């Protein structure tokens, strides 16, 4: 029911679209290298290109918080490790994410947690590439939510793999990562196998 603006005043575009939070296994996020900014504006969103062929600006992850460490004296921040059936996510929260910092402070590992955050790609001086997720929120959840997420993430991974090569991002992923779909099917299969049937 969108009306034409013909003859009227141009309507201000009020619809703000929030970046969806992608579901991605640790085993896949770890392999991501390509990151880019869409647009020239300082505030334009930045994306990480996933090997399964989709850009992501935000991720939603559920797993087990296994370790947390507070670092820094003047500007303290938390680094933490979070594990899913395929590997480890590195997550962090600094003084610009006070809510997430307080949430991490209150959670004692090991615990199931749900994380919403933005992935960042770092290169170490010796050329290694690291991906860490800067948290917007970290919430303690139950096992049911973790299991639900594994299903959700497996489905999302399979969906992306099926479209690989049919979307601009999918094509780019094929070129940059030489993605082997079978590998990701195996990853999803193994993650699902760990759930109780």
């Amino acid at each position, binding site marked *: *029911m*969108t*009306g*034409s603006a*013909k*003859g*009227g005043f141009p*309507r201000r575009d*009020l*619809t703000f*679209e*929030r*970046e*969806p*939070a*992608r*579901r991605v296994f640790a085993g896949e996020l770890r392999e991501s290298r390509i990151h880019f900014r869409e647009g020239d504006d300082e505030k334009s969103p930045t994306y990480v290109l996933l090997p399964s062929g989709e850009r992501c600006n*935000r991720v*939603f992850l*559920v797993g087990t918080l296994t370790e947390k460490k507070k670092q820094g004296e003047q500007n303290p921040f938390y680094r933490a490790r979070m594990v899913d059936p395929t590997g480890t996510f590195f997550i962090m929260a600094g003084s610009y994410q006070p809510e997430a910092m307080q949430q991490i402070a209150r959670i004692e590992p090991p615990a199931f*947690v*749900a*994380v*919403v955050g933005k992935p960042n790609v770092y290169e170490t001086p010796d050329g290694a590439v690291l991906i860490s997720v800067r948290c*917007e*929120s970290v*919430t*303690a*959840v139950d096992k*049911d*939510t973790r*299991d*639900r*997420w594994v*299903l*959700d993430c*497996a*489905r*999302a991974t*399979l969906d992306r793999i099926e479209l690989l090569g049919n979307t601009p991002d999918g094509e780019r992923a094929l070129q940059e990562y030489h993605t082997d*779909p*079978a590998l990701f*099917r*195996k990853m*999803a*299969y193994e993650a*699902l*196998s760990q*759930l*109780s*049937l």
Partner: protein
Amino acid sequence: MDYTDTAERISQKVRAKGHEVDTVKLEGKLKRLVEEFGVPPTEAERTVMSELSREFSINGLGTAAGEEKTLNQLVTGEWATVETKVVSLTSVPSSAVAQSGILADSSGSIRFVVWAKANAPILSLGKWYRLESAVVDEYRGAANLKIHSGTVVKEITRDTVLIPKITPIQDLSPGIGSVRAKVIQEWETTHERMFQSGLLGDETGTIKFVLWKEEGKERLTPGMVYTIYYAGVDEFSGRYSLNLNPATVIQEEGDITVNSGDTSFSGALVHIAPGSGLIKRCPVEGCNRVISRQNYCPVHEIQPGFLYDLRIKGWLDNGEETKEILVQRETTEQLTGLSLDQAREIAENNPLGMEEVFLRLRDRILGRYLTCQGREIDSRMLVNACRFLPFDPQETAALLNRAGGSP
């Protein structure tokens, strides 16, 4: 391409008005327009005709005005001749307008305006007229027939009975529409000139309706079904509303099942916005605004007698799409198991006050999978039912098959 037929058609029309034209010359003009200037053939015909009508000062020929059309054939920007019935007269919006209302024939209906300067005879409700050389125009996104000083108005006799076509609410478009619908909500009027407003619904959807104050208008009764002929369909900010002032409203027997337009969306709750949890509202009748912690209402200033309310504002995300949701008190209580009374007690007995309620709500629902049902307005979902989405082992089996299948 051959232009003989077109040229012959034009010359016949001109001859009918008592003028002679050279058909070969017409053909040449048409050919030049179409082949040299890339004008579409119908437009070329129109151009030549209007040139001739200017040359011979013939009215009602020139443009497509000579062509008699039914109302559903009218195209914005064109001249037209129609035979039509006045089915509604509405109060005129300005002194430049002599009359306004709705015209109908068996093909459809259209709004019309008679300019004061047109010096046209006064049209009577229920009578048929032949209108030569009226102009079709667009006003607020809907077609409108303008009767100006060049329009020839003749009263004619027809005994055709017009039965307007009922349109499903979902298919309404700006202009005129007839619906059969049930009054499902009555809203507080927001303007002193407004007589009644609310929501009408049928099997396909819902639409807002407005009835402005006017003599002889009667209120609609909530829960009743009405057949509404010739209502104005207006568009405002991309949403439609039905203006019942020009309409004929007939109360009906029976009931209809209304499609409330509810949609369902599942995903993870990825963000809870400030303003969720326990909030204070302005107690002034009809205000209900959220007020600050210091009890300050932007309109009614300090209100120590505020009312507490409980709600969730947040973003639900399925990995592809993110939707803003607004969960009102009752549904919030059901989902979180925290009642308004409990929330108030927590706030009053805790050093963090209302923030403590926010934190407890957050810990119960953030990062969880939810299914929400509700109405979507301006890309925000007003949730009226919401539940946690459980883990489903059957889905595991299905996905295992998909992942294990051959590439």
